[in-house]
């Protein structure tokens, strides 16, 4: 190894030779670069749903500025979810979604459907292809499948750069067709839940799905956006999106309680449970603005979204990321998000006995008015040769109006929108190809 150089005719030649040895010889160029990313997410709502998600994603940068990406996602879900019925001072019995067997809820408790168990698999594929020096085209497709639901879709987008590439304008659209296989068959909206014929086993498990209904919906989305470099430190992005969904939009497992009115014998107590009924179309729009600014090595990223739809829901989201960059490519990223939405026009926590049935009604808490707060922290650090690890946690709090004014009877003590807290933990690994 110890090289003895005797009387080199040219020191320059010798310098080139020993440098080549030091650098390990001439490297052969390859035509592809790529990375593989994998991550595991654990999600837990207090006494409700628990979920685990694994993601494996790959990106290949090919010659000619073509980028191919693929992603495989696998989710496992288990736990309980509110079925939409109000709490009662009596024991409540609900038919399982399959129609086989039943489950009971103790007095005063929020009715949770504990048959919530699912696995989901999804596959995404995308390709970006430049069309000349300033324009690029991206196309993609996805397929996802779970127990009672599957979706497949296509998307395409064009972006073009202007003004020395300081401005990027993009337009993209997507279409998806989704199939809902309603366990236990499709129920007529706002029809009564039939009482289960108990299988006698007290059935903890609900393995038999019973009759199956097949429903579908079509989802169309359009997005136009602009990204503008404001100066060396600041980038601004704005976009507008329009979405339309038509078809079967009900959640087949959500119920609504019909309760005795204040003048009844047992005011606030349920007398019937109806399956929910939603309109068969929804049009959504949103505007979004984001500013990202570099502050001497750190980055602050602030965004705002305003959303509205023809169901009467309006929402506002403010999100802030701060990226602290440390020596050695380590980074700490605290994150805060605030979300508020108004309730859908047809949201009803319950219906009153004797009142005429509304055209549409749902007690799904996701259509109610609520605030949500997310706080998160992520730490990432490099391993060697471009491999990177990130570890992060998030705490999510959802707060709605648990006891809106005008409640009566037994509903006065009930929590119609129970607080929901969730904890998320994510570990990710990035490997350079």
């Amino acid at each position, binding site marked *: *190894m*110890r*090289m*003895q*150089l005797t009387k*080199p005719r*040219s*020191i*320059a030649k*010798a*310098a*080139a030779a*020993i*440098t*080549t*040895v*030091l*650098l390990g010889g001439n*490297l*052969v*160029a*390859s*035509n*592809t*670069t790529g*990375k593989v990313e994998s991550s595991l997410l654990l999600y837990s709502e207090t006494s409700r749903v628990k979920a685990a998600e694994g993601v494996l994603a790959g*990106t290949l*940068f090919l*010659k000619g*500025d073509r*980028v191919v990406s693929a992603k495989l996602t696998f989710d496992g879900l288990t736990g309980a979810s509110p079925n939409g019925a109000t709490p009662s001072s009596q024991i409540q019995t609900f038919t399982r979604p399959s129609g086989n067997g039943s489950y009971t809820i103790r007095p005063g408790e929020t009715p949770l459907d504990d048959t919530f168990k699912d696995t989901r698999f999804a596959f995404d594929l995308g390709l*970006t292809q*430049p069309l000349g*020096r300033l324009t*690029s085209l991206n196309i993609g497709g996805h397929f996802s499948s779970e127990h009672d639901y599957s979706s497949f879709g296509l998307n395409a987008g064009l972006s073009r*750069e202007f003004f*020395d*590439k*300081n401005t990027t304008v993009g337009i993209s659209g997507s279409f998806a067709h989704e199939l809902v296989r309603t366990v236990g068959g499709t129920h007529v909206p706002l029809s009564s839940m039939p009482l289960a014929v108990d299988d006698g086993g007290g059935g903890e498990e609900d393995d038999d799905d019973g009759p199956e209904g097949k429903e579908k919906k079509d989802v169309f989305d359009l997005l136009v956006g602009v990204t503008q*470099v404001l100066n*060396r*430190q600041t980038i601004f992005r704005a976009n507008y999106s329009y979405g339309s969904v038509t078809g079967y939009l009900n959640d087949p497992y959500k119920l609504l309680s019909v309760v005795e009115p204040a003048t009844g014998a047992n005011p606030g107590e349920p007398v019937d449970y109806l399956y929910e009924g939603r309109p068969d179309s929804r049009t959504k729009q949103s505007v979004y603005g984001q500013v990202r600014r*570099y502050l*001497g*090595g*750190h*980055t602050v990223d602030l965004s705002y979204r305003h959303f509205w739809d023809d169901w009467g829901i309006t929402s506002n989201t403010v999100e802030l990321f701060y*990226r602290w*960059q*440390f*020596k*050695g*490519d380590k*980074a700490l990223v605290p994150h805060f998000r605030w979300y508020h939405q108004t309730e859908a026009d047809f949201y009803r926590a319950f219906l009153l006995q004797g009142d005429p049935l509304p055209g549409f009604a749902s007690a799904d808490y996701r259509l109610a008015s609520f605030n949500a707060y997310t706080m998160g922290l992520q730490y990432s650090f*490099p391993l*060697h*040769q*471009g491999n*990177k690890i990130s570890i992060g946690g998030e705490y999510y709090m959802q707060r709605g109006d648990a006891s809106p004014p005008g409640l009566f009877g037994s509903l006065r003590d009930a929590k119609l929108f129970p607080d929901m807290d969730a904890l998320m933990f994510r570990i990710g690994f990035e490997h*350079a190809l």
Partner: protein
Amino acid sequence: MLSKELVLRRSENCWKAEFSAMASPCELLIDTDTESEARFLASLALSETLRIESKFSRYRDDNIIHAINHSNGQPVELDDETSRMLAYANSCFQLSDGLFDITSGVLRKAWKFDGQPIHPDKELIRSLLAVVGWSKVALTDRSITLLPGMQIDLGGIGKEYAVDRAANLLHEKSGRSVMVNFGGDIRAIVSDSGREPWTVGIEKPENEEKVAGVIELRNGAIATSGDSRRFCLYKGKRLGHILDPRTGWPVKHAPRSVTVIAGQCTESGLLATLAMLHGAKAEEFLQAQEVTFHCIR
């Protein structure tokens, strides 16, 4: 403003990534239209640069250089990369007849190059010379043994090495044309003959804003040795900061700076340093090597 974070900007025909490392502003130019690829490649080059910086910096107490410099006469086991670095330093020592010596750093204790008059402590220089001299070092493929009190410093190689490694990594990973520039030490690679060469603006030393000329580089490198701001005055004469490891004194009549264009940055850096060590004969040395160079006196 530069930062430890990658800042990506669109340049006319490529993406430009900037960060700060090795006490220099660092710049990567990657001939791609895809931002995500540029970001991904740049992050690979950044982590490789930071890895080299932390591994070979003499200012850290957790790396192989610290272990060697505090080995107190005991052999220190070497990993492959450090072994290659030291074999390279050994070759440089042989090539330069002992002028290029990575053990000469301790001599800096006797000098201060802040442009002020100096009265060097000749006794101190003599005592420091006792722990200077690569020939006193026992090097094998697997280990190095220094005399107690000796120190090595790879500062004269590390930055150029990082430039070459980053450029090769970027090119090897992507097959694209790339240019790496760490504070004026540059390496360019053009992916195929159909591509345009990279152009490098050469700054005028007295006014850093003005561009003195433009050099086109296809596959090549530029490195500069010397720093016109680091000198001292002795008996009214200006002495540059390049120290002769044999005398312990600054090399007399060395140019203020030497810039060399060659194939690889490490090679250019070595030739520039050797030219400086040749003092008054720097230009003569470089002419004999038939390389493109620029000396400032």
